[in-house]
């Protein structure tokens, strides 16, 4: 058991090292630059609403930058090793295939965690700077202070969503090409945001079969819309802890199913 955990850890650290060497962390500089430029620009264009826009924009940017990392690294995690044949020497070591899959997931999760943590620090720093430059009168009109600890909740939920995307990309990566894996992952990301519409699909279609298919898809597809609490928090409202825990549980189950599926597919795969 301990040996297995150690192997997963070493594979994960290797994935993180690869992402650092591939200059993935450069996106953080881009993120910081864009957010600061946007906040200066918004500050000059709007009045009163600007802090909400910056909060919203920052959260959306964290989500989009994280999504790019989760998908574009995730789809290559396994397929690149197979394509470049580096997997031959690796799997001849005492590494079991499911450990390899778990390590790849954990490595990208670590990369995402560090990226999101740094983006969150930049986000709060920009908000603090913005708050410091506004007069007290303007600040009193805001629904919530510029630096609001409740903003951590949507950031945590974005991270959970991205872990699900990471697992989806990794799952596709075990049996298909990077292009197909990217298409599948992006497709599920988009579908996951409109998933709630499928719940009531049987009420808007005449065909009972189509209604059942819609309902089935609702349960199978990831429900990313449920993770989106940006609007609530930006307007100064709190998100109940139970809601966050429920979503964390949902993400954990979804990830576990995908990783088990990926491990099963990968366990019987031939490397020709």
């Amino acid at each position: 058991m301990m040996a297995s955990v150690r192997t997963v850890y070493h594979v994960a650290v290797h994935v993180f090292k690869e992402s650092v060497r591939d200059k993935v962390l450069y996106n953080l500089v881009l993120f910081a630059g864009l957010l600061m430029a946007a906040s200066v620009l918004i500050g000059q264009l709007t009045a009163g609403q600007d802090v909400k826009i910056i909060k919203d924009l920052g959260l959306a940017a964290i989500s989009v930058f994280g999504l790019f990392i989760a998908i574009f690294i995730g789809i290559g995690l396994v397929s690149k090793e197979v394509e470049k044949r580096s997997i031959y020497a690796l799997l001849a070591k005492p590494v079991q295939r499911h450990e390899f899959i778990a390590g790849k997931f954990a490595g990208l999760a670590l990369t995402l965690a560090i990226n999101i943590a740094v983006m969150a620090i930049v986000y709060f720093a920009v908000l603090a700077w913005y708050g410091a430059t506004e007069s007290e009168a303007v600040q009193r009109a805001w629904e919530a202070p510029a630096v609001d600890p409740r903003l951590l909740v949507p950031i945590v939920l974005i991270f959970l969503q991205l872990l699900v995307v990471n697992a989806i990309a990794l799952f596709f990566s075990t049996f298909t090409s990077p292009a197909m894996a990217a298409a599948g992952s992006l497709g599920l990301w988009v579908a996951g945001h409109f998933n709630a519409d499928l719940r009531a699909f049987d009420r808007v279609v005449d065909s009972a079969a189509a209604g059942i298919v819609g309902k089935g898809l609702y349960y199978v597809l990831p429900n990313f819309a449920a993770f989106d609490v940006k609007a609530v928090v930006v307007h100064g409202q709190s998100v109940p802890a139970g809601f966050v825990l429920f979503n964390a549980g949902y993400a954990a189950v979804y990830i576990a199913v995908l990783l088990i599926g990926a491990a099963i597919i990968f366990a019987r795969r031939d490397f020709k």
Partner: protein
Amino acid sequence: MIRTEALTKDFRTGFWRAKPRRALDALTLSVAPGEIFGLLGPNGAGKTTTLKLLLQLIFPTSGRAELLGRPAGDPAARQRLGYLPEHPYFYDYLTAEELLDYFGRLFGIDAAERRRRAAHLLDEVGIGAERRLPLRKYSKGMLQRVGLAQAMLNDPALLILDEPMSGLDPVGRRDVRALIARLHREGRTILFSSHILSDAETLCSRVAILARGRLAASGAMRELLSENVRGWDVIVRGLPGVMHDTLAARGIGVAVQPDGAAHLTLGPSVRPEPVIAETTAAGAVLVSASPRLESLEDVFVRYIGSSDATLGTGGAA
């Protein structure tokens, strides 16, 4: 050390109505501890398929494979195994030192020992200061050397090397041959595939010859190579021109070499002594006389058929 029983592998080819193509057909062989065993055959004969089955990089359609007394793919067996893939490729962004460090961690080797082994092995395979450069900057031959170093990292009892001389220049090939011979002297078992017969002839105690996925022949080198003399090569200097026709008329091949010496090719039924006596009496000086023995290449062609043998007898693969 290695045992396969009726090991068979079919690959599916084609997308729609995929048809199975048999890459390996009921291969049964065994490699004893301490042997250097050569798996020979033309391109596409099933050598790499066999090695991948042993490592469980691919799964057999039927049959069994055992390594170090355990079923193929058992992690405990892999702990004592070294593997060099064909045309090895590693992570572009790591240096050779970092690669060995990563693999060393997977074997559970402690940090000080990892550093010591990496330095020693990279010295041994001739990777100098380049060991601190990213592997993307390495030539094919250098990657092959790094591949050998990583295969020896865990001090393995069994080494499986897929075309170990591939991509190496003549000096590199000589170094690798010497390295394999030394590893064998240290008591390790080595199974390697090659289509370069001279390498196998120099190194192997036993070989198996594969053709179209089937075992065409196997056995000890001395059993496979007939000790019968297939003729003689006599080289003389200063052979009078008149003798060329005389010898040729008796079925002896005469070829004048660039240095002016005459190379006489005698068939198996002609003894060299009378020919040497006759030519030296005519004023020629004997340079050398040597028997022609069957080479592994002759054996190979005998089993495979010359038309099927896409062979290299010397140069890099």
